[in-house]
């Protein structure tokens, strides 16, 4: 179990992370969200021991993280951290050996993963000869080459097309099922929503929202209603409790203050003809994120 307890980090006088706490249990996927400069990478670097905490402590299975446990951790950095002059095979041996693996096991696992990600033909190519997307795949493969107990992924989906995002997602989900603790950051809320059960949103190093994704969405009072039928945008905006109406191709997205307003909207919509769709949905994580980060900005 990864435990981050009241962690604070100062760079000189600048407060980068402010009293951050969260917990990731085996098999859990934890999302750390925030805008640029929110303190996500600093948090990851503190977990990896690359930076010392100014205050607070970080433990893995109740033990401080030091070089005796780093063999069990996988780390994918936000920026490419590959030695571009090496071939994929050389790079895998380099990072794998640093994880305490022997060369035979490294090459066996490398073949397995390269095949899984459809890049087996790049095994003997130099990293610098690969496209950005393929470099990201290799970086991800190297991060999981040691089947880590704790996997830290800093913006893992950057530079990937939807097909490869799906590949990553499947692998991450599979690892989670096998009991790995996974913690990752992303700007793309739809990626987080895909497979993340727990999350924390941080803003200027401070936690503005954290907990179980389902609970967060349930607790979030504002909901969305999707309506399709013979009615105008004005008809919907005139209903008391409606915040906004977004017009899509053939339907309206009605944003309401809380779930109670949905009854009023249903009553009003029922008065119109040819109503083909009326669905009340939870807000997207993106909406919650913007709302929370916006609130935090306001404060």
């Amino acid at each position: 179990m990864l435990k981050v307890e009241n962690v604070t980090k100062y760079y000189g006088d600048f407060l980068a992370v402010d009293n951050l706490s969260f917990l990731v249990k085996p098999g859990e996927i934890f999302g750390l969200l925030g805008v640029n400069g929110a303190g996500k990478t600093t948090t990851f670097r503190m977990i990896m021991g690359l930076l010392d905490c100014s205050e607070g402590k970080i433990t893995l299975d109740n033990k401080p993280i030091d070089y005796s446990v780093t063999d069990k951790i996988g780390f994918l950095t936000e920026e490419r951290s590959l030695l571009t002059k090496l071939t994929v095979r050389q790079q895998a041996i380099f990072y794998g050996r640093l994880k305490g693996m022997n060369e035979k096991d490294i090459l066996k696992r490398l073949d397995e993963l390269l095949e899984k990600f459809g890049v087996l033909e790049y095994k003997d190519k130099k990293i610098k000869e690969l496209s950005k997307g393929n470099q990201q795949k290799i970086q991800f493969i190297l991060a999981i080459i040691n089947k880590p107990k704790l996997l830290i992924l800093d913006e893992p989906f950057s530079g990937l097309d939807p097909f490869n995002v799906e590949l990553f997602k499947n692998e991450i989900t599979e690892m989670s099922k096998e009991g790995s603790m996974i913690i990752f950051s992303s700007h793309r809320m739809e990626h987080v929503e895909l497979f993340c059960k727990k999350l924390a949103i941080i803003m200027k190093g401070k936690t503005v929202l954290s907990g179980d994704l389902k609970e967060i969405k349930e607790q979030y009072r504002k909901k969305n209603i999707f309506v399709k039928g013979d009615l105008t945008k004005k008809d919907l905006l005139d209903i008391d409790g409606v915040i906004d109406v977004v017009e899509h191709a053939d339907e309206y997205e009605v944003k309401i203050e809380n779930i109670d307003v949905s009854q009023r909207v249903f009553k009003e919509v029922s008065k119109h003809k040819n109503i083909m769709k009326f669905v009340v949905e939870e807000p997207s994580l993106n909406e919650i994120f913007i709302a929370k980060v916006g609130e935090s900005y306001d404060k």
Partner: protein
Amino acid sequence: MINKLGFLTNISLMRKIKTKWFLLANLLIAFIIIAGLNIDTIITSFGGDFNKKTNVYVIDKSNQIYNVFKSNVDSASLLGQMSDNFDTDQKESDFVIKKYNKSENEAKKILAEDEDAIILVFNSTDNSVLDVKMITQSYLNASKFQILNTALNNTKKILMIEKFNISPDDLLKISEPVEIKREYLEKDMSQKGENNEQIFGFLFPVLILPFFMLTLFLVQMIGAEVNDEKTTRGMEIIISNVSPKVHFFSKVIAGNVFVLIQGGLLFVYALIGLFFRFLVGGDKLGGVTSEIFDVLKDVLAGGIGDKLIYIIPITLLLMIITFISYSLLAGILASMTTNIEDFQQLQTPIIIISLVGYYLATMSTVFPGSLFIQIFAYVPFISAILAPSLLFVDQIGIFDIIIAIILVIITNLLLIKYGLRIYKVGILNYSSKGLWKKMFKALKN
């Protein structure tokens, strides 16, 4: 962690050695060294008569000058050989002096067949003691001209002395060089040894040139490697698996093992060059390289050879620990820089320090006993070049070298203690903003 140190050291070393560039560079170096040591053989193998003597035809209209001139040419020619070749045993002149009794115009016909020949016409006049006309086919070689000029000037002096009725034997004695008999109060001293020591004083900086070259290799390699890992951000993955201390030592060890291997290869290339030299009998061909070997042979045969028994190991020890100093410094400085251009600028002072040592070593024979130079022989980074050359020419003693070694060891320990603090912060720092503040803060921690 020791396994990881071994692995990192090995991979760092292999990245330097298992490259086609290392192979290519060594092939070139080997070729240059082997060819350099056999340059005289190579030159002569392309053809040419290197022992050809120059014919000098003398038309002596005064009938008084020829004999005096001939003896002076032999003396001047031998003096020239002695200063050029350090060979006191050579007795033959480069010129064949012939008296020519026919006219000047007849003599000029000789030049059509023997283009290198020289015609000298001596006219005795009232106004000047010796009036000389020199006729050649084209420009004359400077050293040949110098020898003839010296001989002519001496001849003129002798002709003046002759006016005072001095016998020809006495005249020859006057024109002969003065023989200096040397006496040494210390035992096992000889004039040959004295000459060799003076020559070796100049030669030593040449022999330690590989150290200077290897220092450059070392600094550049460690800097480039640390910088590469930093700029590609591979450093974050590495440092998340091994401590900065292990990473630092792996670079230092790999860098030093590399220069020792490279130094060993240079030595092997030199041995191969010498083997070829003796195989083709090139040592008998003369030339600069064979003169160096003659000096070395004399040095080893004489009393100085005994000194080498302790000078060589102590110099090697001083060089190895100085290599470590340079590699520690290069690693620390490289960790502070954020790109290779910054490191290239930062390595300039390191190179200059090494150059200072090199120049002071060459100047130590020009300013023997200079306190200034002797003080620098203790200074770490410089001492490896300077101290052994001063020890060899007896300007400092073995005790001074031991002090220099102790000072380098202390410097290395300080670099490890304080440099590691900078390294730990530096390798994960990607911004040059507030760099010095960060480094000073790291030093205090």
